[in-house]
């Protein structure tokens, strides 16, 4: 077995030192009736690298990769070009095969990267402080709701109808078990986000209002007035960003008064990966809320010689110290994904992020205008960044499947996201990133036209 260095001679020499006759003897604490003396039957035996690669390649080829089709899916996961150096750098063994930096003297690489990552996220979101990352956007979102509950001592959360339905489901799961009241209604297919109605719904029992920006249908809402309405009654505004590239083009949530800004960082550096691992972003606008934050935080300090260095800090919030009184049970971050995000954002810088966002918006406008010319298709949005919603006169879930069969990955049908009808079964949300060509847009338009004819 190529991954096991011990030889039979090594094993006997080690057993001699231990004073045991066999490895099985080391398992004497396992009751004999529960100890397996041979490999489990009906499972295959070991395989060569070549054989495993062949098997996995066969499975991989059963999927239609995004690069092999005109591709327009978004709805919380976005396909962007990732510079080759990102993947090379995250595969350096010193990053890939290291652990949580519990011994900071020999983990400054990871720690400095996390400090840079936190600083980048805070700036991007218009916040004071960001943590070292969470599992993904949806879990960061429910952690934000839980945090708002700790800060305000109120258990009601009002979720925007424009929040990603998976994020809503995740929050509802937690609400069911920790006693939070989650108010939510599915979105109406109208051109504007629902921030105005939310501002009217906030009351003295509201712990937080959660909005998505841009929202699930791609609409961009100004949250300034909503933030004021929340603050007037002592509630917090939580903003969720599932497409961080958008912030190269539009105002940050922090600028508009959001108190907790969370997001899915996958779009920058991480890739699609069929949904995971992704990268939860978590930031707060007011530094006084830092001690209620979940998750790891990296901080600057000095070493015994006065040299600058970095450590994990404020861990008295965390489970390994506080146990059942911790702010969260999370015991990891999404370290390697945070690294990929940070490298990609460093390659872009402010200039590159703005240019990338502009190119996304340009292509999305082009696609929206082109699709509007297809008979039967209506573009819903008045505002959008790189994602917008269209309605079609047929059931969209089947339409998307039919288009996939013709080699066009057309978007995410709202019927799949919202099983409960109300015209949503006619909607498709489409993302148009820099990876889309004008030829792709043309192929989508003609495929749609053909399917709807």
């Amino acid at each position, binding site marked *: 077995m190529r991954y096991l260095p011990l030889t039979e001679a090594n094993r006997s020499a080690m057993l001699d030192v231990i004073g045991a006759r066999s490895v099985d003897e080391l398992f004497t604490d396992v009751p004999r009736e529960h100890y397996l003396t041979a490999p489990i039957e009906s499972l295959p035996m070991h395989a060569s690298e070549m054989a495993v690669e062949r098997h996995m390649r066969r499975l991989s080829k*059963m999927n239609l990769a995004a690069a092999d089709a005109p591709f327009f899916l978004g709805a919380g996961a976005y396909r962007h070009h990732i510079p080759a150096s990102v993947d090379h750098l995250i595969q350096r063994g010193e990053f890939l095969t290291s652990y949580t930096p519990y011994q900071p003297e020999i983990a400054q690489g990871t720690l400095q990267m996390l400090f840079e990552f936190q600083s980048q996220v805070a700036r991007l979101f218009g916040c004071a402080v960001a943590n070292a990352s969470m599992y993904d956007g949806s879990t960061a979102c429910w952690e934000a709701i839980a945090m708002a509950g700790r800060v305000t001592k109120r258990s009601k959360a009002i979720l925007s109808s424009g929040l990603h339905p998976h994020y809503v489901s995740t929050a509802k799961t937690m609400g069911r078990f920790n006693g939070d009241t989650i108010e939510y209604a599915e979105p109406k297919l109208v051109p504007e986000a629902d921030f105005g109605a939310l501002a009217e719904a906030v009351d003295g029992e509201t712990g937080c209002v959660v909005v998505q920006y841009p929202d699930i249908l791609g609409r961009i809402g100004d949250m300034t007035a909503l933030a004021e309405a929340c603050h007037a009654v002592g509630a917090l505004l939580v903003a969720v960003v599932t497409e961080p590239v958008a912030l190269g083009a539009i105002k940050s949530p922090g600028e508009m008064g959001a108190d907790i800004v969370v997001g899915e960082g996958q779009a920058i550096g991480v890739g699609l990966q069929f949904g995971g691992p992704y990268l939860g972003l978590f930031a707060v606008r007011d530094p006084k809320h830092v001690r209620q934050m979940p998750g790891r935080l990296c901080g600057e300090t000095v070493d015994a010689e*006065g*040299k600058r260095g970095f450590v994990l800090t404020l861990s008295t919030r965390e489970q390994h110290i506080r146990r059942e009184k911790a702010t969260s049970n999370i015991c990891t971050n999404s370290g390697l994904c945070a690294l990929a995000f940070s490298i990609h954002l460093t390659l872009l810088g402010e200039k590159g992020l703005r240019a990338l966002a502009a190119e996304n918006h340009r292509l999305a406008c082009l696609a929206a205008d082109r699709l509007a010319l297809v008979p039967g298709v209506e573009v819903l949005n008045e505002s959008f960044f790189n994602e917008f919603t269209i309605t079609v006169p047929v059931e969209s879930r089947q339409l998307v499947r039919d288009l996939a069969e013709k080699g066009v990955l057309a978007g995410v049908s709202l019927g799949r996201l919202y099983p409960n009808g109300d015209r949503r079964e006619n909607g498709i949300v489409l993302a148009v990133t820099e990876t889309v060509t004008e030829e792709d847009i043309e192929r989508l338009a003609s495929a749609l036209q053909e399917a709807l004819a």
Partner: protein
Amino acid sequence: MNAPNISGWKPGAPEAPSGSSGIETVTGNRGLMLEEPLIFEIGGADTCGVDLPEPGGGADRLGGLARSKAFALPGLSEPETVRHYTRLSRQNYAIDCGIFPLGSCTMKHNPRLNEKVARMPGFADCHPLQPEATVQGALAVIHELAQWMLKLTGMHGVAMTPKAGAHGELCGILCIRAALEARGDARSVILVPESAHGTNPATAAFAGYAVENIPATAEGRVDLAALKARLGPDVAAVMITNPNTCGLFEREMKAISDAVHAAGALVYCDGANFNAIVGRVRPGDLGIDAMHINLHKTFSTPHGGGGPGSGPVVLSEALMPFAPLPFVKKTDAGFELIEEEDGVEAAPRTFGRLAAFNGQMGMFTRALAYILSHGADGLRQVSGDAVLGANYILRSLEGLLEAPFGSTGPCMHEALFSDKGFAESVSTLDLAKALIDEGFHPMTMYFPLVVHGAMLIEPTECESKASLDQFILALRSIAERAKAGDESLHQAPQLAPRRRLDETLAARKPVLVWQEADAAD
């Protein structure tokens, strides 16, 4: 923003002599040990390492919210970027550099085949919401890995979506809570051993339970009599780690499960240490109702400097109906992904969704490649060699270091020592930091909490005998210095990229993001 490198390792008038050689350099670099400033100190707002079209005037449908304010994100060209992160990487210790014996963390070799496989376009470049017909291979991977989990654990079902071990714990506890509520028997307390990982009580509390400790016996195992005495109609579940955090197998696990079930409660097993028994013990045979499996431990998906992890949860027949959405179902026509819109029919009692999308696909592909490479025979050898290595360390050091449970029999995959016998002025921390100077990552320190000055050493099956011998040699030498009261241990590490860091300062005056003002200091 465009400031030259004026800070980074600024000298800051050190009071202690710098390094052991006493040689000062102008740059702060020391041969191959290269210092590196922050991107905010070397990057610029106008520098970019990606070629993109210049933004034109074009359309603006941004709802009047176009960004005007600068957000001051520094950029670097590609060569600068590669160099920045390469230099940072070299300040890290990693498994690729040597033994990483962190007890309870399971730092084993990460095969590069797994990295290659995870990057195949059919896995890496697929969207989680693509039509099922276009992702049959991805669903097949989830199904195939799930089948391995079931056969290796002897359990009834598995929830694949949890994103890490603690997330898996939450999944298991929520299944338990949903099952109890479904039978109209909501209970309020979860029992957790004192030696448990902190995630156990934190998870139980997060799921709305009160947490109570179960005491351990003098032998480092769950006190069955005390547990039985505490069981009652208010106890929802017991969370047991097996093998436990002292590196011992819970011999009475089946009796514990039987007692818990007799009292109407359920058994959660923390499977963090499943790597010690994989292929040799099936948790399903021990009466367990739910157990998470850390793919990043037992099945070697990379730890990546702290995540991402993956924590599938195997479930008993009683709990399976409550498992979360989505899940993969095999039918005659192929694989289906059961999500919310099908869930009402296919899984009417599910507790809901734990996270967006379909689980940690990038970890599934790696874990499956690892499992297929080892096969049933190789996985059994994995646990055998891991336990052999740990016992070799235990017996090679126990004459010198106090092994609190060494006399009760073999350990499992990790060897536990205490600081008994150290000179009063020397601590476990000193010993750990001295290991750094010898070129090793230290063991887990001060955990489990039930042993004074605990040192928990987990070598894993990936160390050669020569590697183990070198580690033992170094540890013996340092242990002797610790017992003799060698004061120089307080100075360690002296040869690492940094000396001991001031963690108190970091917590008292938190600096969590870079501020321009720093550069002017």
